[in-house]
């Protein structure tokens, strides 16, 4: 297996998924650092995990529900108070559809 874990093309793809963008120099440095980190992760292939259930939470909780009753919630004015732009009780954003 070659030493390169992630190519600059893949970095572009992942950046798009993550809704990030990078300058060329930044992208080169990132690609190199990401490769170092991902190569380190290869260590995990040494571990025999056959039959091991993946653990995503240390303390397994089930169904943390509450009663289906109307309780208070954040009023619209407070919800909009930090918005960079808002209008008519909505968050305003640049055009979505041409």
């Amino acid at each position: 297996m070659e030493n390169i874990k992630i190519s600059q093309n893949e970095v572009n793809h992942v950046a798009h998924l993550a809704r990030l963008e990078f300058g060329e120099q930044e992208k080169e440095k990132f690609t190199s650092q990401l490769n170092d980190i991902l190569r380190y992760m290869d260590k995990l292939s040494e571990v025999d995990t056959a039959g091991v259930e993946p653990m995503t939470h240390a303390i397994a909780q089930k169904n943390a529900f509450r009663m289906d009753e109307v309780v208070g919630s954040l009023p619209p004015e407070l919800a909009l108070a930090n918005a960079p732009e808002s209008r008519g009780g909505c968050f305003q954003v640049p055009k979505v559809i041409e």
Partner: protein
Amino acid sequence: MELYELTIHELQDKLRTGETSSAEITASVFGRIDAVEKDIHAYITLMRETALAEATRADEAIRKGEIGALTGIPIALKDICCTKDVRTTCGSRILHNFIPPYDATVVEKLRAAGAVLTGKTNMDEFAMGSSTESSFFGATRNPWDLTRIPGGSSGGSSAAVAAGECIASLGSDTGGSIRQPAALCGVVGLKPTYGRVSRFGLIAFASSLDQIGPFTKDVEDCAILMNVIAGYDPRESTSVPEDVPDYRQFLRRGIEGWTVGIPKEYFIDGIDPEVEAAVRETIRVVEKAGAKCIEVSLPHTEYCLAVYYIVAPAEACSNLARYDGVKYGFRSEEGRDLMEMYKKSRAAGFGAEVKRRIMIGTYALSSGYYDAYYKKASQVRALIKRDFDEAFAKCDVILTPTTPTPAFRIGEKTGDPMQMYLSDIFTISTNLAGIPGISVPCGFTAAGLPIGVQFLAGHFQEGRLIQFASAYEKEAHLEKRRPRCHGI
């Protein structure tokens, strides 16, 4: 001694007898802040006016005999806990102007207990870091040596306690971010069991790892704060409905006959020799206090870092997807359409380490890589937890160094992310397994830098940790020193 130098319990004695007042204590703390904050930079936002008003109200309550668990005591908060109407930045440009419309549960609890809130402390951006150097608002300096880091990500909360800029504080710990800075600043820091303290209002980094916990000057203060912040919260779906004992009952009980596990995998090459010597001395001290030390093994220790640096970034990239310039925080004006706005806001709003971890997490979860990375890491995580279950069948607590080295210099590790990640090797496993851990001061290097020792116990065994740590504290008779920060 100045009021700002005392512990919560010492100040409570003086408040009860009328020897001092909250107004005097708060003035003493803010006087100290005025003297040293320009050199330490522990705070992002000070809450001076509201603190003074709270102190006045606390004194009225004390006069009427209505004394709560923390009435009149100045406490600082890591700027990752939402405080209603007070700017909460998470150390990031992307939240530089965010004013939460609600208090986090822990903030509500502190207020209900009568605490005086001094301000919001500095931290690595989005809690991602081990030195507080990645804060958008600039670094915090270690009160014991201003050329060195205080640790991270809760560096501000730790430095503030060490320097006397608050009596105690809250931080958060995802991979060691309470315990590591506690060790490097010479204070007590505890990470509770996952689910012990509500995460409602805690700005999320990695949802299966994050916990809020206290920084204090001694173990008794830690018990006092844990009594206030622990407990079930129906608003938080990972909060565990486990009763909260009175943690103060565990102080001064002794550890005669306890078995202490020393994991052989934690005493590796690369530990600073002074750190190792100090930790070996703690083994001697706890044996003198009546405990028996045995070797245990945590065989998957060497994989903890790799597991953490897949799981935490994967959870983080999901949690940080909400920072998109739409509802709050920084928005770039340069986006011509929605997608550009997202990308430019996030690119300009996040720092390099945050972007690095978002990229790792996104990659690890993306189609074609999910099984190889995230699923594999989650399986190894189960084995790491199993290691602890098996070890705790043989011992009551586990004892380890908290960090491999004392505080390093500002700028020393920022060039190489992997080097920075290695400072968490002894603390990371705890978050992965969800168990509680405490770091207590155990000595100083010849150059005068603090060293910490870490104790670990099973789920919801914070009482056991407090019992062990307080017995160690008493037996160790550590010399009380003051950090030589600039100023008084």
